């Protein structure tokens, strides 16, 4: 078990390093640089001075070695689009993204699980067919489109929720603890709901399939024969076994959610890692792009590692 864990850790670090290297090179090979933005006032000399000041005029391999050395010391460079150290920018934005994706992950698994189990238990019923069609619809929708529709529906046509931001920019600071929490929750609903609906569909379909494989099992038939109530058969006996595949899905969903957060955060002006990454790519903010890729890949491999560990913990066959 320990050897397996150590091997997975090493694999994960290699993956992070490769992803970092690729993103480091690709963003620098893209046309333009942090100082090539349109401005009639900035002379080429000034731009060249800035490039030299931050070492962007050096060959890419030299820049890479410098970056790796400083990253190893915990320094991820300076963000030109945010005018602060990258570590400071990430310290503010990562918790916001974790909050959004964490809530969405929890809600999508809860919703997907309930729907998937109910669908399996009522296979072939109108609920199974109707919910399957609705979930397929959400599963097929592009994330930015659903986000825009949610914005239009609940912030403009029926303005019951705020259109963007993480809190009310003015009044939040003057609210009592409870009101401030409600304010934050109101700002969280639309982006979290968008991400939830997009991923809940996949979870439900996965869960339904897993349940349908379990329900014909002998031990389920035995439980029914012994007179165990159907609700207990489904939610206690069958679900426990059918949950194992969901753990794998947990690891796969994290990168999907982080990718979705990039668009959803942008639409709802949620100043998390996805939004600053999108802006950083547009402004060729090299250090910030690379750092967000590092953090993103770390989160993804950590999620996968956690899923593997959980799999090992609950399924003896995986351990062997």
């Amino acid at each position, binding site marked *: 078990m320990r050897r397996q864990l150590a091997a997975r850790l090493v694999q994960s670090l290699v993956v992070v390093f490769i992803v970092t290297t690729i993103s480091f090179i690709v963003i620098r090979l893209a046309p333009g640089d942090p100082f090539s*933005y*349109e401005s009639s006032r900035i002379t080429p000399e000034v731009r060249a001075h800035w490039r030299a000041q931050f070492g962007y005029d050096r060959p890419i391999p030299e820049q890479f070695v410098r970056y790796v050395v400083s990253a190893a010391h915990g320094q991820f460079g300076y963000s030109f689009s945010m005018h602060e150290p990258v570590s400071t920018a990430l310290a503010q934005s990562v918790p916001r993204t*974790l909050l959004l994706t964490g809530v969405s992950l929890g809600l999508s698994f809860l919703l997907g699980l309930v729907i998937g189990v109910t669908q399996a238990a009522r296979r072939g019923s109108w609920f199974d067919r109707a919910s399957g069609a609705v979930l397929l619809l959400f599963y097929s929708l592009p994330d930015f489109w659903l986000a825009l529709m949610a914005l239009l529906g609940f912030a403009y046509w029926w303005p019951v929720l705020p259109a963007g931001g993480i809190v009310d*920019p003015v009044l939040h600071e*003057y609210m009592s603890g409870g009101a401030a929490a409600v304010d934050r929750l109101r700002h969280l609903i639309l982006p979290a709901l968008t991400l939830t609906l997009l991923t809940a569909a996949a979870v439900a379909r996965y869960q339904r399939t897993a349940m349908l494989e379990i329900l014909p099992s002998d031990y389920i038939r035995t439980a029914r024969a012994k007179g165990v109530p159907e609700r207990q058969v489904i939610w206690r006996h069958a679900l426990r076994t059918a949950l194992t595949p969901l753990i794998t899905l947990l690891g796969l969903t994290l990168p999907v959610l982080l990718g979705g957060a990039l668009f959803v955060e942008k639409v709802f002006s949620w*100043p998390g890692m996805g939004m600053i990454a999108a802006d950083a790519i547009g402004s060729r903010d090299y250090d910030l792009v690379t750092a967000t890729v590092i953090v993103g890949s770390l989160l993804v491999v950590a999620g996968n590692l956690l899923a593997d560990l959980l799999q090992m913990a609950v399924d003896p066959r995986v351990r062997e």
Partner: protein
Amino acid sequence: MRFPILLLGSAVLLSACTSNETARTSAGPDGGTLVIDVPGDAGTLFPPLVSEEVGRMITDQLFDRLAEIDSSLDVIGDKGFAPRLAKSWTWAPDSMSIAFSIDPKARWHDGKPVTAADVRYTFHAFTDPKLSSPSMTLLSNIDSVSTRDSLTAVFWFKKHTPTEFYDVAYQLVIIPEHVYGAVPFDKLATSDIVRHPVGTGRFRFVRWDAGSRIELISDTANYRGRAKVDRVIYTPASPATEMTQVLTGDADFMEAFPSDQVAKLDSSSVARPIVMPLLAYTYMAMNMRDPAAKGRPHPIFSDVRVRRALSMAVDRVGMLHNVFGNNGSLGHGPFAATLAFADTTLPVPPYDTAAAAALLDSAGWRRPAAGLVRQKNGRPLRFTLLVPSSSLPRRRYAVLIQEQLRRIGAQVDIDELDPQTLNPRMVNGNFDAVLNLFGTDPAVGGTEQAWATSGIGPMGQNHTHYSNPVVDALLDSASGSFDPAKSNAYARRAFATIIADAPAIWLYDWTNVNAINRRITTATMRADEWWANLADWSIPADKRIARDRIGLAAAAP
């Protein structure tokens, strides 16, 4: 067990997001709160390094210039300027120096008095190569700054020009030496100190939550009197969020409301439109040099007959209505109509497709058969048009131009690029044609940058490589004339010559439709900076809403 853990995790994340947002009490006198949506975060709040609009609109509230230009935007001499940080100024008899007397009442926001040494330090900061201010070259005519006494700063010029006062008053935003002076110039750009600006403006800085908001409050002890509203909050938002917030009242102001959505503003009971002509114009620039071999003339655009024919083949008025409805402003030439020396009566090549086709025929570009692309010596009349993907109006114009030029036998390939990619290609001359927006200075120098021969090369903005000695001479005379009437006459003759040479198709002047909440009363808006008089915007007491009643006392930094 798992649910409480989830709750605990969420609570930790919620608190992490709230960590620097300490609660304060809401009390104090009313005045109102302005929430201004901006398209992105400020690049910097350190005036010498500000190069983008959001940074400028905020630093202009926090800092003062020595004198402020009025809405006439008259840049010759000092008639168009009003005292600001300098309560008066005295010209030397030979006009080679100007002595500015600092208002003795002026104080920095930390309470320290403003001195002539601050002015001298400001000049050094803006011109030191180690700091590399984007404004450095605009101050090249200023030789030095000396201090006659603690409240008198003297600017010495290399040569006497009509715009030397403008060079000082418009380009230099005065910053405090005692705040920034301790940090070497080459370290200032990344120093934490520039994130906490201390100025003399009628608003003072409170906080900057990167990517989230910037808050300013009225400086009640200001030497020019407090700002009329208590507080301004700038929030970066996506276009969709900006639009929704301003229509629902969550935000009070949004610059450049989407042109295809203006009808929503007209029918809104919450927000109203403000049409703002700006100091910028948009055109389809045609490169005179071959991008494949820059020493050679462009195979298509080097011929003035082709350029004029293409100009005549597009319906500029029709395109304007198509893209902007009734809110557009037609381009009249290489100038914005808001400039003091603009002339909107100059004749532009008329829309005449038959004449355009005849002109192309006479230039040797003929159609092999009806409906086919014209050719000359086996080369098709085909070129690439670069368009910034960030501009919806220009993307629409590109499609309309493509279709109209197709009808006269020219093939246009549209290449949409993000600004970071497009700009280097434009600067390096790697393009056939580009839909460019040029934001110009109020002075003739802005026109010289874009259309004079001196503007060709790395220091200028003449990316088309257009060159005409007559235009150069006329613009030189215009910028060197001390008589505004003569200066304007020279400039207009230069414009007429450029228009006749047709190095570009003049499409539209940049007119923003800004959205503003109906409860707000604005002050005069200048074409170069709509925010110039923001401190005089007000919210009548009977129209104030919850966020207007927070007061000032609670917002002390």
